[in-house]
């Protein structure tokens, strides 16, 4: 018998009739051709989160980002005028990668007054203008004003830096991110500057790792050994029910209970968690930050008192998880091939004031890694067996609504692209405008 009340249709999934309830094909995760289409249909036409404003604090601060799905690299930089800009990371002379350190494939960051190409010494201002050409008189009528760095659309929401590679993109970032982002505005993201980042090269399709973090149906089973035995048995008996699920255009969110920070019964958590008062859900005591109380209105939409976290998937490859004890994390999934991607999990805390705070954060971060390692390996196991095609369609349950929606959305974007139509988020904007 369910403990959480569901929408009047009887399920979260049927509340959104377009989703259907049939078993879902995972051909979209094992087809090289489909991935080729996704690159152009999704990654070349959507707003992509590439970092945080804190990474470019001053004029001249920059970082690079490899966007494998688009076979490009970008450099994001704060100009002398304070403006944020993004450029394709390519020298206009003969195509050398402009900004890199040691190994050209590695991302880098730093601070400079100009970008200087390692190859022939061409120099670019922070606003992208070509400033200097080595032996300029050897060229043939070279008009420097026509050889600036190639810009990429960039915009910022709540300190998150997004880029868009579609020159025809007309949907502004805030509108693209929609109602979920609006409901998060005011959260003190910018105050949480103690950062831990974990990175993995995962041998699975990028959507499979999103699947893993978009449902908690797996949590009492896959992660059982992380709890005491009695607790693991109990959790498995209960199973998992989300407090709330919602879909907005291509994006999705779920809200979950979280009884572990602090736990009702201290004996249910590991000894070190009891001593430090921290664990998987973060330090049990909230930092004293304005913006955490009250929380922005979109958070904990069911207003449940046992609320533990909200998890948002901003299509295509960016997730934000807001934890009740006052911290957040982000996930990025960067495809590198149909069966490979780079995963980044980044944890953000209010800066530790004492060594005890810092130990609490360390425990939360280490716990994150232990969970993440279990998830990673499961993905490789899934990818390999999906590729057998021995089974092609899979029944997704109501707690897996966001997976159903993700795969449907990704297929929808590909279909629109292949039929020569605009991206679904642009079409949605136009139909809303027409409806007045």
């Amino acid at each position, binding site marked *: 018998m369910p403990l959480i009340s569901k929408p009047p249709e009887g399920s979260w999934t049927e509340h959104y009739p377009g989703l259907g309830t049939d078993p879902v094909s995972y051909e979209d995760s094992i087809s090289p051709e489909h991935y080729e289409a996704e690159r152009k249909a999704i990654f070349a036409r959507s707003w992509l989160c590439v970092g945080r404003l804190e990474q470019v604090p001053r004029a001249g601060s920059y970082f690079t980002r490899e966007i494998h799905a688009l076979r490009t690299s970008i450099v994001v930089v704060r100009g002398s005028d304070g403006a944020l800009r993004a450029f394709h990371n390519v020298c206009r002379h003969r195509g050398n990668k402009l900004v890199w350190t040691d190994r050209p494939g590695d991302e880098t960051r730093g601070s400079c007054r100009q970008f200087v190409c390692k190859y022939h010494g061409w120099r670019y201002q922070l606003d992208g203008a070509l400033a200097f050409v080595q032996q300029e008189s050897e060229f043939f009528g070279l008009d420097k004003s026509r050889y600036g760095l190639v810009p990429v659309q960039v915009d910022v929401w709540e300190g998150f830096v997004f880029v868009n590679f579609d020159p025809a993109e007309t949907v502004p970032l805030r509108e693209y991110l929609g109602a979920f982002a609006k409901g998060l505005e005011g959260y003190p993201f910018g105050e949480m500057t103690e950062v831990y980042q974990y990175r993995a090269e995962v041998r699975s399709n990028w959507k499979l790792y999103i699947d893993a973090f978009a449902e908690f149906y797996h949590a009492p089973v896959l992660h059982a050994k992380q709890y005491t035995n009695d607790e693991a048995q109990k959790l498995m008996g209960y199973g998992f029910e989300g407090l709330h699920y919602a879909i907005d255009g291509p994006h999705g969110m779920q809200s979950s209970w979280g009884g572990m920070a602090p736990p009702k019964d201290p004996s249910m958590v590991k000894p070190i968690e009891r001593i430090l008062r921290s664990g998987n859900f973060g330090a049990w005591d909230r930092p004293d930050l304005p913006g955490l109380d009250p929380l922005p209105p979109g958070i904990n939409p069911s207003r449940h008192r046992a609320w533990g976290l909200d998890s948002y998937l901003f299509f295509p490859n960016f997730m934000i998880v807001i934890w009740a004890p006052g911290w957040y994390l982000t996930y990025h999934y960067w495809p590198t091939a149909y069966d490979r991607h780079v995963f980044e999990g980044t944890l953000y805390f209010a800066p530790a004031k004492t060594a005890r705070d*810092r130990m609490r954060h360390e425990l939360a971060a280490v716990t994150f890694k232990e969970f993440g390692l279990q998830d990673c390996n499961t993905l490789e196991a899934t990818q390999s067996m999906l590729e057998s095609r021995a089974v092609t369609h899979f029944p997704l349950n109501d707690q897996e609504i966001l997976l159903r929606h993700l795969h449907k959305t990704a297929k929808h974007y590909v279909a629109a692209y292949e039929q020569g139509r605009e991206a679904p988020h642009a079409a949605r904007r136009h139909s809303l405008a027409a409806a007045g």
Partner: protein
Amino acid sequence: MTSGPRRLPREFADLEPFAEWALPSERERYAKRLSSTMAEMQSFYEAALPRLEAAASYLEKLPLDALPDDARRLLQLCYSLINVSFPIEAWRQPRVPDSGASTLECVIEPDV
């Protein structure tokens, strides 16, 4: 000599036999965990866990951004204890179960 270059604070001299666990990065701590036996980690855990609360109380009185060297080593030793708590309290083996060839590298962490 009690606060020599490789020492812990005098109050935590009982943990000196485990001072090699005072490692500055998660990468080093995790590598040491994977290259240690369960018996080695068990003895470290049994010695250090009962001292964790005392270490936290000692360290929180000092400025986090200007810790003396011996205190910083004690803090790093506590981070290793946190890392080792998983094999000891949960997994019964050094590696995360079923994590096979997977890796998850810590690429950004605080300076201290």
